[in-house]
């Protein structure tokens, strides 16, 4: 892909456009199908409560996929995202809205490093210690 973004002038402190998405149980079910992750903590409220959760929770990898979408929209091409990591600190519950945000914390020749996080509409820090490395050259 020959997308011109991210802009040549990436600066420390540049922010991602925050990406918010309401995640329903139907979406969690669809993600289970699409990913092959049928762990009942995501699908069966009774099972989830039995292991100490408030009910079913979204897959951490679904939260992370929304996070990388925010990074990809900024980067202009998914191929530019060369590293991504985060901690699944708090669960996202069905019906809640996740908001992913981030900013550039380092600029090196050819790459930018972003610090990322995601919060829920309940005010919980869902994803913490988020970090991505994005190619800025070529």
């Amino acid at each position, binding site marked *: *892909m020959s997308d011109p973004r991210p802009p040549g002038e990436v600066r420390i402190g540049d922010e991602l456009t925050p990406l918010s*998405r*309401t*995640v*329903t149980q139907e*979406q969690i079910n*669809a*993600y289970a*199908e*699409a*990913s*092959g*992750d049928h*762990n*009942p*903590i995501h699908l069966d409220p009774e*099972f989830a409560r039995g*292991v100490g959760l408030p009910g079913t929770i979204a*897959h*951490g*990898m*679904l939260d*992370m*996929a*929304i996070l*990388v*979408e925010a990074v*990809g*929209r900024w980067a*202009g*091409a*998914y*191929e530019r*995202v*060369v*590293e*991504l*990591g*985060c*901690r*699944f600190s708090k669960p996202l519950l069905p019906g809640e809205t996740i908001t992913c945000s981030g900013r550039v914390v380092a600029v090196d020749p050819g790459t930018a490093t972003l610090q990322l996080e995601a919060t829920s509409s309940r005010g919980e820090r869902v994803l913490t*210690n988020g*970090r991505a490395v994005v190619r800025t050259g070529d």
Partner: protein
Amino acid sequence: MLDPSHVGRHYVAPGQVIDAERVAAYVAAVSGDDGAFSLGSVPPTFAAVYCMMPALAQVFADPELGLDLAGLIHVEQSFEWPAPVLPEDVVDASAELAAVESKRGLTFLTVDLAAVNQAGETVCRGRSLLLIRGGGR
């Protein structure tokens, strides 16, 4: 039951096809009601499908460990993509147990992941930190 003597165990899940229809279903599931957002390529976190899930399935099928996927909690995840993953690629996924630690009756398992394409290029490396409730069955 999982214990530190299992560190170093290696698992393979060869022949994972990057199927365009599965990619589209994945993008649709992630997008939900917002409408599919695509940058015209395989989303990086599709590594969950071609690498993490099939490799972890092998870990969870190991009778020596006695792990149960149900109730497993994903604590941390990181990935690197040294080369692009393209539709129709066929990758061999693998996992290696990197660490087993117990804290207050909880067992934390660190798994290193990798995916190598048909040309022998590593297209993904990853590390999963998993919480095994009660230390396994």
